[in-house]
């Protein structure tokens, strides 16, 4: 069983193999966050590595006030946000100020092709959403964090997390229904 206190103790004593175990334990968690939030496809492995380097450098400051997974997810989230700011692409300002009024744009032929692959389709739909929606959807459904843990990770108040989660899921459901209806209609024609 993975005992996080024991592993952290060993790492702080300079045991690099213990750190390798920690990376193995949390690499999926970090990858999910980076994969969903960062657009640069080629850079993801490097960003994940940066996250773990930050984890190593700051592990001495970790006081076990939260779960280790929550703390690592916060580092991954902040690293992803930094990367988005640096690339200046798909940053917050690109989206409407009032994200409650966010709606998906009309599709193009490329999007229709993506719809044929269910997993790629979901990823494509998530990719189009504002970063706040992407973050809560990923942390809640893929990483299985609770709304209160998402507040600890992102700094977004729990009530707002719930509201983003509700709105993002509603938008996605409507989009999926629209696309399905549209494709069904085209097939029947």
């Amino acid at each position, binding site marked *: 069983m993975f005992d996080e206190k024991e592993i952290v103790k060993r790492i702080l004593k300079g045991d*690099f*193999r213990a*750190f*390798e*175990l920690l*990376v*193995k334990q949390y*690499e*999926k968690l970090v*990858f*999910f966050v980076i*994969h969903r939030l960062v657009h640069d496809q080629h850079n993801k*492995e490097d960003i*994940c*590595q940066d996250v*773990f*380097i930050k984890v*190593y450098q700051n592990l001495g400051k970790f006081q076990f006030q939260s779960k280790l997974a929550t703390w690592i997810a916060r580092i991954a989230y902040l690293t992803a946000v930094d990367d988005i700011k640096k690339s200046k692409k798909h940053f917050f300002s690109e989206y409407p100020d009032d994200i409650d009024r966010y709606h998906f744009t009309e599709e193009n032929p490329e999007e229709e092709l993506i719809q044929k692959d*269910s*997993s*790629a389709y*979901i*990823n494509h739909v998530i990719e189009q959403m504002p970063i706040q929606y992407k973050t809560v*959807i990923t942390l809640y*459904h*893929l990483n299985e964090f609770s709304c209160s843990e998402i507040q600890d990770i992102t700094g977004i108040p729990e009530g707002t997390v719930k509201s983003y989660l*509700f709105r993002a*899921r*509603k938008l*996605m*459901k409507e989009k*999926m*229904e629209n696309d399905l209806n549209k494709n069904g209609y085209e097939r029947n024609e």
Partner: protein
Amino acid sequence: MVMKEMNDEELQHLAEQSGLINKSLSLKEEKDVVAYQTLFKKLQAEPAEGLPLNFAVNVRRAIQHKVERKSDLKFHIILFFAFTTILAIAFVLLHLISPAASEQLVNISPKFKWSGGVAVLVFWSIHFGSQRLVRDNRY
């Protein structure tokens, strides 16, 4: 009596409960709950691509390399200052014991500046080379 239709928040909450729903739902509500359940299932699916299998090993190596380089640098800086301090103390002692000898040393040292410099350079090169060799073999 007409039953009040469930709103999206209630539908999402219902869809999150595992197992079949005991509540009596209208056809539209049932369709919506199923749509939400399908969406949640898709959102839980892991991405097709992932990190390479040796990712953890690579990260460990990168950090180990970084830490060792930092500690090597610290060691060499300390060594340099220790060496300089010892030389300075030796010179001061020599000056206290025999001022003439220390003066003679100051006079002849410029003649050996090149050979002295080369000796120090060779020593450090061998030292660095051997350290790198040991590290490369370890990884």
